[in-house]
């Protein structure tokens, strides 16, 4: 007579296992080789960045003059002088620059490794800041509607109408190149785009019956926005975050390349290209490797985004 037969003893439910659920959701990645490949590349660079002090054979700014513009796998000649913080030293003959040396005789490999650290700190911070602000704006605009929506939408229209790179150039010209200013500029330029996405999702989700149920039991608006609505918008937002992280990585690289990024001698990948551009014809490797590094990281993020989207479409 009833839809579900109930067992007589009425067992108590098993406890929840949040850890197991997390592992399960990572296991989802296996459903798309694109996503696994992307995740693999990203994890590779994260490990490189975390272990930079261990992995890098030399300090990133240490110059060994004799290895200036050296091709990959160059071994220093024994007994040549070079300078460190401690003063003059002589090469022992076993200094090996696996990826060659740059225009000042620094190890390209070490600089690429340390460069991963630089980009993997600032790009996520900038993206996260943009997300916090974008989500708050999007939730307000989409849930509250009315004049708040009008104002926020107009403001973001205006910011979005700025060509992004022109915006960066203007901001950095005025405030000067520094890590904080880059983070601020990225936040300022990305938040409106995120707001638009969040607003669109909220406009759809706010009409769901479970939101109405929360309203009818008198929940306050922020509870509804943050607990009832936001978690259900996470799918598209995670995909977008991966894409945006890749885009921010590119932006930081481009700014470095243009000389508007972090000030030297920071081993940022964009800076590396800019520094060695002049010698590209005689020593192409010192520009090639940073370019390969940034391209693979962005590729990893984009593949991850694409794969995640594919997985979410299947369900």
């Amino acid at each position, binding site marked *: 007579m009833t*839809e579900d037969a109930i067992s007589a003893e009425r067992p108590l439910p098993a406890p929840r296992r949040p850890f197991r659920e997390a592992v399960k959701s990572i296991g989802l990645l296996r459903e798309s080789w694109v996503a696994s490949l992307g995740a693999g590349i990203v994890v590779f660079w994260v490990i490189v960045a975390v272990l930079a002090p261990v992995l890098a054979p030399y300090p990133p700014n240490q110059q060994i003059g004799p290895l200036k513009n050296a091709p990959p796998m160059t071994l220093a000649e024994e007994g040549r002088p070079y300078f460190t913080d401690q003063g003059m030293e002589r090469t022992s003959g076993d200094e090996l620059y696996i990826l060659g040396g740059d225009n000042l005789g620094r190890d390209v490999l070490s600089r690429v490794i340390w460069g991963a650290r630089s980009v993997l700190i600032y790009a996520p911070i900038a993206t996260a800041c943009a997300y916090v602000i974008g989500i708050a704006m999007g939730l307000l605009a989409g849930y509250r509607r009315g004049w708040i929506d009008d104002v926020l939408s107009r403001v973001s229209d205006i910011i979005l109408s700025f060509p992004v790179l022109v915006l960066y150039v203007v901001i950095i010209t005025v405030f000067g190149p520094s890590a904080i200013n880059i983070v601020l500029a990225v936040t300022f330029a990305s938040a409106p785009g995120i707001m638009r996405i969040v607003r669109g999702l909220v406009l759809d989700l706010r009409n769901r019956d479970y939101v109405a149920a929360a309203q009818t039991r008198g929940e306050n608006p922020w509870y509804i926005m943050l607990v*009832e609505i936001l978690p259900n918008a996470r799918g598209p937002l995670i995909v977008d975050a991966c894409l945006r992280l890749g885009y921010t990585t590119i932006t930081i690289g481009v700014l470095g390349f243009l000389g508007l990024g972090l000030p030297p001698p920071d081993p940022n990948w964009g800076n590396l290209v800019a520094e060695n551009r002049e010698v590209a014809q005689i020593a192409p490797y010192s520009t090639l490797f940073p370019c390969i590094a940034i391209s693979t990281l962005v590729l990893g993020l984009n593949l991850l985004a694409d794969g995640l989207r594919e997985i979410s479409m299947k369900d």
Partner: protein
Amino acid sequence: MAVQEALAADPRTVAPDNAVAAEAASPVLEIDNLNISYFTRAGEIPAVIDFSLTVKPGEAVGLVGESGCGKTTVAMAIMQYLGGNGRIVGGSIRFKGRDMNAMSEEELRQLRGSQIAMVYQEPMAALNPSMTIGSQLMEVPLYHEPNCSQEEAFRRAVEMLGNVRLADAARVMSAYPHQISGGQQQRVVIAMALLSNPALLLLDEPTTALDVTVEAGIVELIAEISRSFGTSMLYISHNLGLIRETCDRVCVMYSGEVAEEGTIRELFENPRHPYTRGLFGCIATPGKDKYAKPLTPIRGQLPLPHERPPGCNFGPRCDHFRDGRCDAGMIRMQSVDPATAHRARCIRWQEIDWDNYRVEQAAYTPIEPGETVLESREMQKYYPIVDRSLAAMLSGRAVRYVKANESLTFQARKRQTVAIVGESGCGKSTFAKVLMGLETATGGELVFNGKDVAEQSVMKRTPAQIASLQMVFQNPNDTLNPSMTVGSQIGRVLRKFRIARDPQEIEQRVLDLLDVVKLPRAFINRRPRQLSGGQKQRVGIARAFAGNPAMVIADEPVSALDVSVQAAVTGLLMDIQREYDTTLLFISHDLGVVRYLADRVVVMYLGQIMEQGDTEAVFAPPYHPYTEALLSAVPIADTRVRKRRIILEGALPSVLDPPKGCPFHTRCPRKIGAICEDTPPPEQEAESGHSIRCHIPMDELRRVEPVIQYNAE
């Protein structure tokens, strides 16, 4: 405003000429042992198993079943259009003797749209939004007849629009799909299908997306087509009532298989398969009564396609299941009566003594309504629409009002079930919003438990007030938050209403509530996507009753559920209501369910109450002409019932621009004159507690013949 009234005892027996012709001719469509599977990452999932069907010329065959039973897959297989992952893995489909599985893409193209045509569920989506209707119609002759000129195609398209009763064909030809109403769109789709005079017409739930009075018009049209064009039809629907009104034969599907097939008469009056029997027990036909003859639900739920049981698919839900027989291997169709081609997929069909079989179903004693819980006095809700265009501002019409609710006056008493009935745009949902405090009224009073809450939004109500007025929502997939467990969602309500505080107490209360709605306790940790539609609806009911409410609003709580699950959820709702002495405000468009469930009925049209009274009074003359039309429009799955046909012309007017005078006058078949157009009708008392808002004198309304009568047996 023509009235089309025809006394049709059984629409099928009225037109016997087709049926006679059908006997002789060779079949249009023969499907033999068809097996279709979908190939997903979980492996091969059989969607249709051992399906055989024959359609003769001029015959209309109904294909009926619940969601996931494979009925639409069959239609798509006939069209040889199963999408990327669907494949026919066995059996044959022969159209006029030709094997369709062996046809080339080009041969199929020539067949599609000319020999076999299709009508779809969502007419708006089925039409190309960026092409005019004319050019979409003209494509059919232009691409199927080599020598057809543009002028010829145009002429034929206009003519066909006339045949499907679309007035103003010239305007429709140059319109885009979004510029005409849903009913008109479906007529266009039907015209498109008929343009090449097909031998076989496939109709896939052609009226599901439409309002019930619009549906009646389309059903009438379809019945007329099979009469005048002699087209064979395969009518796919989940609604047995609709099948009964349109088809000669019917084929009942369950979980990928045909459970039973036969003529309408045989199958409706002498069903042999326990599932078919069960289905009829779940449908609220006029003979059912919630006290004396309640619905008999089928227990359990539909099996998922990859979790079908061995042997009989219906076994786990069947009261006549026998271990070792019903689950021992595949069950074939058995012939019940070769003369009428009545067949059933049940090995025990001869053993079960249906005449002496009665389901244990306790009859209930009728409730005594208590004191008034809710009183709506002239409640009014207008939405302002601000027109920012310059022309509107200059003419002073910048702000217009949508009159969503216009002076609603009615009462609901303790323990009573009050139904608000009406089609889309009638304002029933707006009323629920105001009552729940999600909107505030623009006028009148809404007294709930002795307090006027009309202008008190939910944020200004006390937790006790909120807890005593809760809601059950329509869409099971929407009613629960997908990212929270069942337990945390119910627990949140308990905490919010200050019913329980410490986690252990809350958990205990949640478990108790799961018991009340007859769900396993383990569900406390489940997430909504692990639950079936009926189970989600049960959780929704548990949530609504968590605070022991004085009144629960149920907004179409079962309309999105499968028929076999509907009855169980309806029954549960009634049981809990009885146990908690709750007043139930039941919002619905389905008169069948309303008749069964409600003690009082309020009929609304375009924001106004047209008629209200006790259920028996409203469902018998005197009627308001709108109630009369609604009653006639509802398909009834009972061959003993005789229905007077009333087809309303025209579309539902827009709420933005409602007609003056009586809102129903634009479609009213009983309109008496100019008075209907300019004077709002008076409220007339038919008897105590039964009032009708109409200009027609009460005496005349009383003389109206009942819409529904039983055939004398």
